[in-house]
């Protein structure tokens, strides 16, 4: 009875998963010239291996069937042959040489860092990416964090998982097609690695070192990737999403972003109500704080302190600001003063002081944050 039920459950699971996913076997060809070349190399090496495998295992299985004692096979006693041994040293060496030459050409292409039109700075943080467009003509610098947008409820199996589960971000990075884009990769804490399979770009983001990579995207589309260097707890939850659009659209997008950045700066100056701060605060909290302190402020015992009912969140606003703006040295608490705008900082602190049963009742305004940062 029990076994039967388990079996039915397993079959149902298998069938349902077949329905929602594909059995992808191979590397994507990608949408850049380099990624196509890489795909070609991959397939070339693969087929070389297949041919060698068929030959070697063919001989082996042949003798396993023919030369068995039960069939009366009598063993020969040859055990050496310089000619044969020389041949199977030199022939594989030649095959490998051929693959190596082709690979070296592709490698040289990948290392061609000559003039590019767009420079994108990519900085890894635990556990999100910051993108900054280096553009000397911009009135306002375009720079933003890109965090995973998948709700915690989907991860914890309380909501059905959407199609782009774990591969969706709140703000994708937008790049123009047909344009050489240079990436400058670095990190603000541990080593991360920025990877988009469709572009065949994977480069480590290392603290204190700026790494370079480049791409020219041939097709418009949305391309998803992930961090590929173990970077701590949420290593599995820092996706990369690249949206490739036409150069015209890109220009427009960048201009809009600049405008948005200017408006965002103005947000700091405007008047905020308590409700507005709480609403914005929840959003900021979810994207910047919840992965450690947990969505309900409970923290993780032994690793990340709880905020619900914590002396800091219930204590004077000054102390609370100090921790969030300046971080706590020697712990995982980063200095968010450089990562959040004054408005977002005010919102998130107000939220933390008045959510999950915390009821200080005060509100911290962007002006308070500004004054705190200015040392007043």
């Amino acid at each position, binding site marked *: 009875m029990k076994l039967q039920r388990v079996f039915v459950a397993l079959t149902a699971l298998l069938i349902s998963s077949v329905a929602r996913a594909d059995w992808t076997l191979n590397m994507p060809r990608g949408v850049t010239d380099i990624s196509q070349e*890489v795909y070609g190399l991959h397939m070339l090496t693969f087929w070389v291996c297949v041919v060698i495998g068929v030959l070697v295992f063919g001989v082996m299985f042949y003798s396993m069937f023919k030369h068995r004692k039960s069939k009366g096979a009598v063993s020969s006693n040859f055990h050496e042959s310089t000619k044969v041994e020389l041949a199977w040293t030199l022939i594989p060496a030649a095959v490998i040489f051929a693959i190596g030459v082709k690979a070296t050409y592709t490698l040289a292409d990948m290392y061609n860092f000559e003039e590019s039109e767009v420079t994108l700075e990519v900085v890894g943080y635990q556990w999100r990416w910051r993108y900054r467009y280096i553009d000397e003509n911009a009135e306002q610098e375009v720079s933003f964090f890109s965090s995973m947008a998948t709700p915690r409820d989907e991860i914890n199996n309380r909501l059905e998982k959407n199609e782009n589960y774990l591969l969706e971000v709140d703000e994708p990075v937008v790049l123009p097609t047909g344009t050489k884009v240079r990436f400058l990769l670095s990190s603000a804490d541990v080593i991360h690695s920025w990877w988009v399979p469709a572009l065949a770009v994977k480069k480590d983001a290392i603290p204190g070192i700026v790494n370079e990579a480049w791409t020219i995207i041939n097709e418009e589309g949305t391309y998803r990737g992930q961090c590929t260097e173990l970077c701590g707890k949420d290593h599995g939850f820092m996706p990369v999403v690249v949206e490739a659009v036409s150069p015209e659209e890109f220009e427009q997008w960048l201009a809009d972003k600049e405008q948005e950045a200017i408006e965002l700066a103005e947000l700091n100056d405007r008047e905020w109500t308590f409700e507005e701060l709480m609403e914005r605060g929840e959003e900021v909290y979810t994207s910047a704080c919840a992965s450690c302190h947990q969505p309900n402020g409970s923290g993780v015992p032994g690793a990340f302190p709880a905020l619900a009912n914590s002396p800091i969140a219930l204590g004077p606003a000054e102390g609370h600001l100090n921790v969030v703006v300046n971080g706590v040295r020697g712990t995982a608490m980063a200095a968010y003063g450089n990562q959040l705008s004054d408005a977002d900082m005010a919102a998130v602190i107000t939220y933390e002081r008045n959510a999950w049963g915390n009821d200080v009742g005060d509100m911290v305004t962007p002006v308070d944050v500004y004054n705190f940062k200015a040392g007043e």
Partner: protein
Amino acid sequence: MTTATHDHDHDHEHHGPAKGLTRWLYTTNHKDIGTMYLWFSFAMFLLGGSFAMVIRAELFQPGLQLVQPEFFNQMTTMHGLIMVFGAVMPAFVGLANWMIPMMVGAPDMALPRMNNLSFWILPFAFAMLASTLFMEGGGPNFGWTFYAPLSTTYAPPSVTFFIFAVHIMGASSIMGAINIVATILNMRAPGMTLMKMPLFVWTWLITAYLLIAVMPVLAGVVTMMLMDIHFGTAFFNAAGGGSPVLFQHIFWFFGHPEVYIMILPAFGIVSAIIPAFARKRLFGYSSMVYATASIAFLSFIVWAHHMFTVGIPFLGEAFFMWATMLIAVPTGVKVFNWVTTMFRGSMTFETPMLFAICFVVLFTIGGFSGLMLAVAPADFQYHDTYFVVAHFHYVLVPGAVFSIMAGVYYWLPKWSGKMYNETLGKVHFWLSFIGVNVLFFPQHFLGLAGMPRRIPDYALQFADFNMVSSIGGFLFGASQLLFLYIVVHTIVAGKPAPAKPWEGAEGLEWTVDSPAPYHTFSTPPKID
């Protein structure tokens, strides 16, 4: 230490073992120590395996079900550390302890007291390592490659215990290796010239040299971590002018030879078993020796192929790509030699042979994916994905681990004087064979489709193959309990085995009784 070792021949010639627990605590007998190494490594294999079961269970379905990411990271880290340093390496040292003196016609290891010490510090090292899991902040969670600064500035407090555990393991390995070198160079029976030694002895001699050369490098790199964490140096800390990339260079300068430390003795075992069951001399003995030596040499100049994505300049990248691809040549020679040994032999397929043949096929598949990974431009796509996970597990599980199992089945009659149950052995083989392929083959597809390694949860397109892989994992894991049963059953209730249970087996170990007497070759044998 050294003067004491000379009089051991006279000390306890033709005595049986002492009784009780003290026999094992104070023993200097190579067979006793070999047995302890083997049981210890099997215990670690089960412990590391149970961590792997946690990993596969969590990855059975997308979403977080059983464990939280921080614990998942501790599981991947501990699985790797325990399997590499606790299961595979001590198992080979155990086999070396048992077999090398018997194969070269020596009465014991050259340095029996150091032998005792090198074993008995191991349980302490691993007890310390395992205890970190219960410490505040958890155990090591930075992967078995422990890249700085995740393992230094950002590490849990237990990292210090991890470092000391690695120091002790390193000391144990170094002592074991020195002992093996001394035994092989000094203790061979008259007439046992170097080029007459069985390949298992040869591969272990070369492995021992590798160990002596690179274990200090591991000790050095963890010492640097210790200094960075506690004494304010800045080897790997960018803020103080150090470089996290330096860590990776030093780690892999140790790490790549380490990979061969885990596979060269396997070559030796397989080179003993295949001729025995093909009833035909090993093809190309001397080329096997030279191939092993060249693989060992090349292992020192390929380390940066683990670091193709860290931003190495073009010339460096090209050099390490070419050097790595070159390794395929001597490795190919070995595979061709094994196949040619089987060709026109007179084969039977007892359990050791099944494992050995499986080793040749699946290790070669691991070698193929290794060749693919060596191609630097393609490695940008494979690096740190499940393709790499599939690759090194193919080399280490049906590679190193299967060779150890083959060796256990092959020599168990000699050790215990009893014959294992052939049917059960074959069942164990087939379950393991199916399990290991269902477990690891789909991981190639996962990696190519873009699944990064060391993640506790994954996107939906990876769901199917992960489930298949987990099922294979559970099957493989469960089959190893059968292995435990078979070994225990053999020791307790196996049928008596003759001195030479395998028709085609060759070597001095088969000239002594089964079970091998407590002291063998107290007078050196004659070698023709």
